[in-house]
């Protein structure tokens, strides 16, 4: 089994090196893409086999070698494949395999083809380290690793020039990349502090040791650790207020958005919370957990509201991702870790599918993102239409699709937990979700063919790409049906979450409510945007001028706020400090030197060459000595 672990882990790495070392400077060749995808597939198969193995015989724990040994600290490269991590592995490798194959088609015309694959595989590798590691330091390696890969991939088209914020909220790929990296760094600091806390209070960073020792710690420490770790999670999973980078990250190629900014990396935060469930499920940190849940609910709503008005096809999907992450945190915060993980997986499938669909559309529309310029494309792009339809249905949470089960479970949890405000928010959000996701679908595929006027000639993706997307579609539909098996499998490791009898009694009603809301959302969307001819959608200038619309359209002015109150002051302060450094700190040094030189010039005056003044100096000196003598003699 060990070998399987290493195969699963290192296959993507090999792919990355293969692409990066041998083909970095050579012109694009499909060989790279195929090899990389093949290795990913291999990794996926290995993960599956591991999953089966774990299901039968339980967790696999391997240690590769020592990493850091200093003082009492010792960190190995250790990998733990248990129910949680194996689930993540399967999801990650599956989605990334699909994305790799997809990219072969999508990046076809890009001259950075080979580079792209090396980055992409590298990302998968770091992601696997993140989920498989058996200690917090290892987790942090992956944590930073995915950060860098996302930096590389967001900034993949680094050659694009900056554009003013008004034209393009995410100024340029390189800008967005830096923003993402730095914002994540802010959170990582929190995570580091958490790690330090753990080390100095427990003396190890190994999960098992740490979780063993947690109950013996003082409450204050536990709370501190929980907060610190959650700050880390907030960064990666783009929770408010560290969320702006996610939408800007859409500057990256669409497969990247699908893989990193929907399916895998952004869920790392959720994974961390799930991983650390022994901590978060302690009574001492109940407050923190509840805060996590509330923040999740808030973000779910907040993001959904922004999605309502967005025009950028990718931003819409990104915002919906954000909102779904909110759901996951809500579940995790309320202690329903397995449900959170289940939603994580389901979301990974349909959201990746959705993104790839969006990618197809962009590909067809020569990277046009504005849904206002699309419409009625279902004729030309049937495949993508179906896929995106499925994905949106799943996202909207209509019955028998993956999203339905997971999301419904989360809402139920909220209800069951008795925190009805969260519940209410989540229910409303569910309706909004249905609305904006179908708004997008109808905008794109129904209604007038607005693109014709603009002279686009869309055509659907290559067949093999569409085929490659099939597994995701299949899972987006069917994943929910395995909920019970999944539960049975995962709860060997995660605490089970039992709905109270009372909730069971109401369950069907709650589900119904959600469905009704969702359907209404879809219907409204259809009414507004799907019509053709004279029912065709018109822009409502008046409404677009309204405060509420502008507020939402400008992401509640949060980016503006950051720019005004963080970026600009920091820049100014830096300039000031530099000025001070030159003028004061360095200046004073030079001043001392000058002072010496000056005093030299002055005292030089006594050396005027005139003998009689020399004699006077001497006489003065003599008198001075004698006088001093007299004085000290009288003093005694």
């Amino acid at each position, binding site marked *: 089994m060990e070998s399987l672990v290493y195969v699963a882990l290192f296959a993507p790495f090999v792919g990355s090196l293969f692409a990066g070392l041998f083909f970095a400077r050579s012109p694009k060749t499909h060989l790279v893409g195929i090899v990389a995808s093949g290795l990913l597939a291999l990794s996926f198969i290995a993960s599956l086999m591991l999953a089966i193995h774990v299901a039968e015989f339980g967790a696999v724990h391997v240690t590769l070698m020592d990493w850091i040994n200093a003082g009492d600290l010792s960190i190995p490269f250790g990998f733990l494949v248990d129910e949680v991590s194996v689930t993540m592995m399967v999801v990650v490798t599956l989605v990334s395999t699909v994305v790799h194959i997809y990219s072969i088609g999508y990046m076809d015309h890009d001259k950075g083809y080979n580079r792209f694959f090396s980055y992409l595989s590298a990302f998968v590798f770091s992601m696997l380290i993140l989920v498989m590691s058996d200690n917090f330091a290892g987790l942090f390696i992956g944590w930073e690793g995915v950060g860098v890969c996302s930096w590389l991939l967001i900034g993949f088209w680094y050659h694009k020039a900056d554009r003013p914020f008004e034209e393009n909220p995410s100024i340029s790929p390189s800008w967005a990349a830096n923003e993402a990296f730095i914002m994540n760094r802010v959170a990582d600091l929190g995570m580091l502090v958490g790690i330090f806390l753990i080390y100095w209070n427990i003396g190890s960073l190994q999960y098992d040791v740490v979780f063993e020792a947690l109950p013996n710690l003082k409450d204050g420490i536990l709370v501190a650790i929980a907060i610190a770790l959650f700050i880390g999670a907030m960064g990666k999973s783009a929770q408010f207020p560290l969320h702006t980078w996610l939408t800007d990250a859409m500057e990256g190629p669409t497969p990247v958005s699908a893989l990193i900014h929907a399916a895998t990396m952004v869920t790392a935060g959720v994974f961390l919370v799930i991983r650390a469930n022994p901590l978060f499920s302690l009574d001492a940190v109940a407050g923190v957990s509840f805060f996590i849940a509330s923040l999740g609910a808030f973000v779910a709503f907040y993001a959904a509201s922004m999605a309502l008005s967005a025009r950028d096809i990718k931003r819409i999907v990104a915002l919906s991702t954000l909102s779904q992450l909110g759901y996951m945190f809500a579940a995790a915060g309320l202690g329903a870790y397995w449900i959170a993980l289940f939603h994580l997986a389901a979301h990974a499938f349909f959201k990746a599918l959705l993104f790839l669909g969006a990618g197809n559309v962009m590909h067809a529309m020569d990277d046009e993102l504005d849904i206002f310029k699309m419409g009625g494309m279902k004729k030309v792009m049937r495949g993508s239409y179906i896929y995106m339809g499925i994905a949106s249905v799943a996202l909207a949470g209509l019955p028998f699709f993956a999203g339905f089960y997971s999301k419904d479970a989360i809402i139920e949890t909220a209800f069951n937990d008795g925190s009805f405000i969260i519940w209410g928010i989540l229910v409303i959000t569910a309706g909004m979700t249905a609305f904006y996701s179908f708004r997008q679908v109808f905008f794109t595929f129904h209604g007038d063919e607005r693109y014709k006027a603009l002279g686009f000639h869309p055509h659907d993706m290559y067949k093999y790409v569409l085929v490659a997307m099939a597994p995701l579609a299949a899972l987006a539909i069917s994943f929910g049906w395995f909920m019970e098996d999944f539960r049975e499998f995962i709860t060997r490791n995660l605490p089970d979450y039992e709905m109270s009898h009372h909730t069971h009694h109401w369950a069907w009603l709650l589900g119904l409510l959600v469905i009704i809301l969702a359907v209404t959302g879809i219907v409204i969307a259809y009414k507004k945007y799907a019509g053709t001819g004279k029912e065709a959608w018109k822009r409502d200038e008046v409404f677009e001028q309204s405060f509420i619309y502008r507020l939402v359209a400008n992401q509640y002015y949060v980016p503006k706020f950051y720019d005004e109150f963080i970026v600009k002051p920091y820049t100014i302060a830096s300039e000031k400090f530099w000025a001070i450094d030159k003028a004061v700190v360095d200046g004073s040094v030079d001043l001392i030197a000058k002072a010496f030189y000056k005093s030299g010039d002055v005292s*030089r005056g006594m*050396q*005027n*060459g*005139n*003998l*009689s003044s020399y*004699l*006077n100096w001497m*006489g003065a000196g003599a008198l001075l000595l004698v006088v001093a003598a007299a004085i000290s003699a009288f003093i005694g």
Partner: protein
Amino acid sequence: MEIGIGHYLILSGLLFSIGFVGVLRRKNLLMLFFATEVMLNAVNVAFAAIGNYYGDLSGQMFAFFVIAVAASEVAVGLGLLIVLYKKYGSLDLDVIATMKG
């Protein structure tokens, strides 16, 4: 009244001060030399007096040596003085001040 050691010492002190002031005030090289001579002679007076007071000869000896030294100083000094006068055509100290700073 009877002239005691005190008077001699006062005399020598006075002479010394006169010479000293001369050294400080005079701008003419020759005058400077005179002034220094005066100072040295003041010292001689002191030595003679003290030597006599202690009934000890080394005081007078010192006085003699001082005289000798003074003589040789004059020799050297006047030599320099003459050369200088040739070069500068003046013995004014303000003129002989090319080296400064």
